């Protein structure tokens, strides 16, 4: 995998060459000075003479480092924007392979599913579903009814209802009233007819009956 970097402009290449030259000159000079000092046993002298330089140099270095610390992010940002083709870079990444390495279970374990579920508008979802049609098409209604019936003690239920209704008492009351009304009428008519016959016969036989009620 190669990161596509735009070719450096010519002026930058020249600057780098100049830098290389300057650094090389400084390095050569330094090693020459070091060799000279070691040969002439000037180390102590040089150390002493170099102290002010070292001090000034350190303070400069610290300042420079501070500045660079500030500037470097900006510079890197600018450089990346300018020289790196981020879209191209991303295009070369095998996201599938990366996804394969991803432990999705672990990710899910970190997610608060309850909180997410709480944000779901269940009512709206239900409104979009035709539950009646779903039940009629997908549910084995016979099996459901069989299951319900198997759980209900129908005999006990019927017995309970009959206990509440007391059907025999209702039948007895209604038919009893009806029958006794009919019987009463028949009996009254019989008594009236008896009296009529007795009156007629008494009159025919010229019989005088003292009072009704005599036995």
């Amino acid at each position: 995998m190669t990161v596509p970097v735009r070719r450096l402009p010519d002026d930058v290449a020249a600057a780098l060459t100049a830098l290389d030259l300057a650094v090389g000159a400084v390095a050569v000079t330094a090693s020459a000075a070091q060799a000279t000092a070691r040969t002439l046993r000037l180390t102590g002298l040089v150390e002493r003479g170099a102290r002010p330089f070292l001090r000034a140099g350190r303070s400069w270095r610290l300042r420079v480092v501070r500045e660079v610390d500030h500037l470097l992010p900006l510079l890197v940002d600018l450089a990346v924007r300018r020289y790196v083709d981020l879209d191209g870079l991303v295009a070369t990444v095998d996201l599938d392979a990366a996804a394969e390495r991803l432990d999705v279970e672990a990710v899910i374990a970190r997610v608060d599913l309850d909180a997410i579920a709480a944000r779901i508008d269940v009512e709206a979802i239900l409104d979009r579903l035709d539950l009646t049609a779903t039940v009629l098409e997908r549910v084995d209604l016979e099996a459901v009814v069989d299951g319900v019936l198997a759980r209900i003690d129908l005999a006990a239920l019927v017995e309970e209802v009959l206990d509440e209704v007391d059907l025999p008492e209702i039948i007895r009351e209604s038919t009893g009233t009806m029958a006794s009304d009919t019987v009463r009428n028949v009996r009254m008519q019989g008594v009236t007819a008896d009296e009529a016959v007795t009156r007629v016969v008494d009159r025919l036989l010229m019989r005088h009956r003292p009072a009704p009620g005599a036995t």
Partner: protein
Amino acid sequence: MHEHEFAIPKEARGFQGQRAGIVTRVVAAAIDAAVVALVLLGAYLGYAGVRFLLDPRHFSFPDASIFRSLVVGAALMALYLTVAWAMTGRTYGNVLLGLRVVGSRGGDVGWLRAALRAGFYVVLPIGLFWVVIDPRQRSIQDRVLGTAVVYDWRPSRTQ
């Protein structure tokens, strides 16, 4: 004779215990005759049904000669009247018409008198019509055996 008046309508309370007339007694007798006839018919059909079940291929309705039917019917009638009068004083016809057979002093007739009365009625049903002429509404049977028939609308015997 007037206990349990709550079961008897007001207009009928006045004549409870009085002697019953010819109309109610004839109607009651007719009902009893019908009951016996129905029982006879049922027995005949039951007998025919049993015969059919036992031998369906050669089945024919059993002979029912008039004479034999009358004899069996009379015996059944006598038995029915005896049992009904001796036990409750009333046959089914009596119950419907609100009548009760009692002794001359208002008590039970007893098994012997009930049996004699039943046989007498079966042999001489026309004796019932003496009720029309008799000043105290007695049939010939009542006069001979010292019984009477009174109005009694109470649902059951209370003694």
